[in-house]
């Protein structure tokens, strides 16, 4: 079984790996497009504050800014570990 998987992986073309990797990274890039320049800093500092109270991983925090008609909504999503 392991051998079969190994052979399968060997046969997988490098171009399809490239495409898959690109789709992920480009989707990530686009989600950050048009957001204010302070967002990465805000995200980092929020993470620091949360870490004073509970230990979370780097990817435990998701932050997004959505603009609606006349207001912007800052959405903060933190996944806390099971205590």
């Amino acid at each position, binding site marked *: 079984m392991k051998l079969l998987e190994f052979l399968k992986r060997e046969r997988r073309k*490098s171009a399809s790996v*490239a*495409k898959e990797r*690109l789709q992920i990274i*480009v989707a990530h890039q686009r989600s950050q497009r048009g957001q204010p320049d302070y967002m990465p800093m805000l995200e980092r500092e929020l993470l620091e504050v949360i870490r004073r109270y509970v230990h979370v991983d780097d990817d435990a925090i998701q932050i997004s800014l959505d603009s609606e008609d006349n207001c912007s909504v800052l959405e903060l999503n933190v996944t806390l570990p099971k205590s």
Partner: protein
Amino acid sequence: MAKIIVVTSGKGGVGKTTSAAAISTGLALRGKKTVVIDFDVGLRNLDLIMGCERRVVYDLVNVIQGEAGLNQALIRDKRVENLFILPASQTRDKDALTQEGVAEILEKLKEDFDFILCDSPAGIERGAQLAMYFADEAIVVTNPEVSSVRDSDRILGLLASKTRRAEQGEDPIKEHLLVTRYNPERVTSGDMLTLDDIREILAINLLGLIPESEAVLRASNQGVPVTHDISSDAGQAYSDTVSRLLGEDMPLRFHEMQRKGLLSRMFGGGRR
């Protein structure tokens, strides 16, 4: 009224200058009065590709700083009528390029020309941002390779936010995809991103596809834009690209593997 087109990519070495030279030559060959501006201050190369490096007296920065008039700095192409080159400065610091200065030069050129091509430097710093800032259209040069595609996507983000049209809420810059160094054999063997992959990821209109070709290096060696080499695959592909830029409907060529004939198989006929 002149159209301002930026040739950009983010990543270096993908063929921006080659494409800017080839496309501006193609436009001039069709009777469009065209000027191509090198925005790569510090590392000028367009003059070499256009074969006018020994005729550079004044450059873009000289004009911006008032040391020379625009007409003194413009170099008339020796091969094609209607084609002019505005070279970049080689020695000055990058801050010599100012937005006001560039705006002023473009305003003046707009009166005289049909097309103004801005050859952007690599990267996303000042020079690259100034090259794209005043553009009406953008040609995003992309190789079938992960870092080039990713950087092209970054550039698309900048075109949509950090340009005059974006800032003033005008119609957005018209974006065109130009895929260069495409190798149909490697695509067929599964080791190169396909044209469809790139189009799907970047989701912009395809302007042209330039195959990997020996003619491109030969052209740059000689300082003759590859569009002049009409017997070559790359020369023809650039010519098709120019037609599409002018609104003509051209079928895509050179994206599929060529079956080698018996003769070329026997004698190993290379790519022209």
